[in-house]
């Protein structure tokens, strides 16, 4: 099916006056938007597949029906109850930084923009917690904590372009996750609106043993099971010291072994980044240490000065045993300077087809995963750019984060190659026992592989969805859950 063209959508633009009037009676007329130009801004997110469409003047999915911007939890509840009563699908929208289409309208949904819910409600320095509204900008949240001497420890590349609620809804991971944990380790409690308009409170406590975790049902649900309106997060004193080290390794294998041994030695680095030769090259130009040791790794330890120093030394011992030498700090400073911006714009601007895929693999499988995935995408298109790094590490395995880039070419041909590359990588990941998503989530773009990833777990998820959202109004068609009739598909064209 051909994607809809923006000009056609503009000509056919229609406004549901009755619905907009009802929404305005809840939130006020200023906070309901229905003009084509404003709705167009909500017809995309940062999914590269969507970008490929947008730059060609096409819609990746459909136009949203309306935009509504509630200013309180109660207003969200009223909006959802109205949507339920009228059987109108809705999508919660934060800052739209997702890269898999989780916030893309596929069936003329009403977009519920949560950015007016943006207060820091309370910072509790005794308990080490912060309660915040879901629509608060991530960078503004971190800045508020920093001003009090704290950090959330969740520092994704999208820090300044995402919301706190979005981090949780998409089950994200920050760049310092090896020390502070992923978002599921950081969130303590949440308040949300269920699809029937009722409120669910998961009170924040350090831990509870009262059956399965209700909280975790909604961490990563991407708005399919309700709308998170506020959260309570763990926070930490800002580290007294950070010690960063740049290492040059003789081989990728040696660097990955070092990362594994550092984690299995029970050290807690804030950052571990290992780059393959392709990604190391551009970051180490002119540094003599990398002439014979072409693999770049960056380690950062943080915390109390004494502890960070001891941990750093222990990690360096492991690295040296695997043939590494310490190199100048240039690559560390480059990463620190650019860690919160996107790398894709120069390529997307010039009509390249750039995308990233992150998967999780066991240490025993990662060498094969890297080799086979690289071979597979080069078989799809020999001149494709393929690079990888490993930047979230565990005792058991790591996230392999890959960058793929096709050169400018005919759009249909490129989308077919892009789809083949995604398919081959996802299948190899599953064959090797990995998970097809480490932290970007599912959205709709990963729908084709979720059945294989979750097996009967997908049936459990669908059963839950059917019970709490029988009319299927909450972000339908995402997470490989049942779409509404007539909805557009956001899937690779294989």
């Amino acid at each position: 099916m051909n994607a809809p063209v923006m000009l056609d959508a503009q000509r056919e633009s229609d406004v549901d006056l009755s619905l907009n009037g009802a929404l305005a009676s809840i939130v006020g007329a200023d906070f309901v938007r229905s003009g084509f130009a404003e709705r167009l801004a909500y017809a995309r997110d940062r999914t590269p597949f969507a970008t490929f469409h947008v730059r060609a003047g096409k819609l990746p999915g459909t136009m949203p029906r309306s935009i509504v911007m509630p200013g309180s939890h109660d207003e969200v509840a009223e909006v959802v109850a109205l949507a339920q009563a009228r059987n109108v699908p809705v999508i919660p929208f934060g800052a739209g930084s997702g890269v898999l289409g989780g916030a893309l309208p596929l069936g003329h949904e009403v977009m519920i923009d949560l950015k007016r819910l943006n207060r820091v409600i309370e910072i509790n320095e005794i308990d080490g917690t912060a309660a915040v509204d879901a629509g608060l900008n991530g960078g503004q949240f971190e800045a508020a904590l920093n001003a009090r001497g704290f950090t959330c420890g969740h520092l994704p590349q999208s820090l300044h372009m995402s919301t706190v609620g979005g981090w949780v809804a998409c089950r994200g991971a920050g760049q310092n996750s090896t020390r502070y944990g992923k978002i599921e380790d950081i969130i303590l409690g949440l308040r949300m609106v269920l699809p029937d308009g009722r409120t669910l409170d998961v009170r924040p406590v350090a831990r509870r043993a009262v059956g399965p975790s209700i909280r975790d049902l909604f961490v990563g649900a991407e708005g399919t099971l309700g709308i998170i309106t506020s959260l309570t997060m763990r926070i930490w004193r800002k580290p007294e010291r950070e010690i960063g080290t740049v290492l040059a390794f003789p081989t990728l294998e040696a660097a990955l072994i070092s990362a594994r041994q550092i984690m299995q030695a029970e050290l807690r680095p804030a950052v571990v980044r290992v780059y393959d030769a392709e990604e190391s090259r551009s970051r180490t130009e002119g540094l003599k240490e990398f002439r014979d040791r072409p693999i770049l790794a960056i380690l950062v330890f943080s915390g109390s000065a004494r502890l960070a120093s001891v941990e750093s030394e222990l990690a360096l011992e492991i690295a040296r045993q695997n043939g590494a030498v310490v190199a100048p700090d240039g690559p560390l400073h480059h990463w620190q300077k650019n860690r919160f911006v996107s790398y894709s714009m120069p390529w997307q601007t010039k009509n390249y087809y750039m995308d990233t895929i992150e998967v999780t693999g066991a240490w025993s499988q990662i060498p094969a995963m890297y080799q086979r995935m690289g071979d597979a995408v080069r078989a799809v298109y020999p001149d494709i750019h393929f690079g990888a790094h490993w930047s979230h590490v565990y005792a058991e395995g790591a996230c392999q984060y890959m960058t793929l880039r096709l050169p400018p070419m005919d759009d249909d041909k490129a989308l077919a190659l892009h789809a083949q590359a995604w398919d081959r990588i996802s299948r190899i990941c599953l064959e090797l026992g990995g998970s097809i998503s480490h932290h970007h989530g599912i959205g709709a773009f990963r729908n084709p592989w979720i059945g294989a990833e979750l097996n009967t777990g997908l049936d459990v998820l669908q059963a839950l969805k059917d019970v709490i959202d029988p009319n299927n109004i909450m972000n339908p068609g995402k997470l490989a859950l049942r779409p509404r009739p007539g909805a557009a598909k956001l899937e690779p064209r294989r």
Partner: protein
Amino acid sequence: MQELEQLRFCAFCPNPCRRAWPAAEATQNEAITSSALSTLAMQVAEGRVAFDDDVRAVLMRQDMARACRPACPYGIDVPALVDGVLRNLEGKASDAAR
């Protein structure tokens, strides 16, 4: 970078500058972010979206883009670029009306 190329760059950038827009502002509308304005301006400049009163009204809502301009990591002046597109479109409209 040429002006249109800068607009395209911003259109494909996920708005790291948005943190400069205060949470206390009453309007928190995705359509007036720098990247959304750049995208819309790019689309009308390339003829993929028709220029009409609705589009003009959104392109003129530049308060957020102005507030976020100092936070752009790439030094792109989105309001100036959008104004350039508007001037060009208004000029074409006025030529056509003659």
